[in-house]
């Protein structure tokens, strides 16, 4: 199914969870923030939070800034 991941359309497996998605992208979960359809999803929900077709998923991190 297609989702919008960080503004880019991507094909992901149906019923993929946030945790699985991050693992597939080799992203260390400790350092990122996940926003699905404009709502921040708490870390403890990532193993069970299923992403749906056309969801807008943002994976964000804290960077240096002024």
């Amino acid at each position: 199914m297609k989702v919008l991941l960080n503004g880019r359309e991507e094909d992901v497996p149906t019923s993929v969870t946030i945790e699985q998605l991050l693992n597939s992208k080799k992203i260390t979960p400790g350092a990122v923030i996940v926003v699905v359809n404009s709502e921040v999803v708490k870390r403890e929900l990532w193993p069970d939070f299923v992403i749906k077709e056309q969801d807008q998923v943002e994976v964000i991190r804290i960077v240096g800034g002024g």
Partner: protein
Amino acid sequence: MADELIIGDKALTSRLFIGTGKFASHELMGQAVSQSGAQVVTVALRRVDLDRPQESELNYIPAGCVLMPNTSGARTAEEAVKIARIARAAGCGNWVKIEVVTDQRYLLPDNYETVKATEILAREGFVVLPYMNPDLMVAKRLKEAGAAAIMPLGAPIGSNRGLKTREMIRILIEEIDLPIIVDAGIGKPSEAMEAMEMGAAAVLVNTAIATARDPVAMARAFSMAVEAGRMAYLAGLAPTREFAEASSPLTGFLV
């Protein structure tokens, strides 16, 4: 009595805030912040580069620092509010530096959108520190909107050109009953010291430290300058005169 700067629920003893961008490495950033004694650091939120995930700067920021996420990238009040809410929900605390910029040449802030964002976020319980173009009427609006401090620019972001807006900042310090924190443009410790001598509550420095040849030593230099400037302000600067006034007695000359 300790000379503390109270903002929100924090009592700060360091009046140097540091921006964490542009450092050559995360390690250097961490050392510079730690050597300067800064207690407030700004950070930004960005999308992860999914093709090249990187380690987080957060691991290098000394423990105990207040994190102040900025809303850089926001072009409207609405976008700034969205970024601030994400930062808070992600556990960055409730401080936020509002930065709304549409001008890409000078990166000057949009004061109008900044007031709107301040109003919304202050109502939601954020400790709001708006970055603004120094204008007395806007500063008054920001205070009414619930800002915890006002952060006027000295010169365009990253320009290292110093206190070009000196007179306007002086008026804000005189007229606005909130901490005035000079943000952006400060390029040298002497300029940070001058801002502090004028009565600024603090200064926020990033580029001048991060891009110095030795950022750690420069962070220390800024820290000392800010402390000296604050001490001078509290001591009360002596008056200036147009003509000379002898410092030695004018009686009992030997010749």
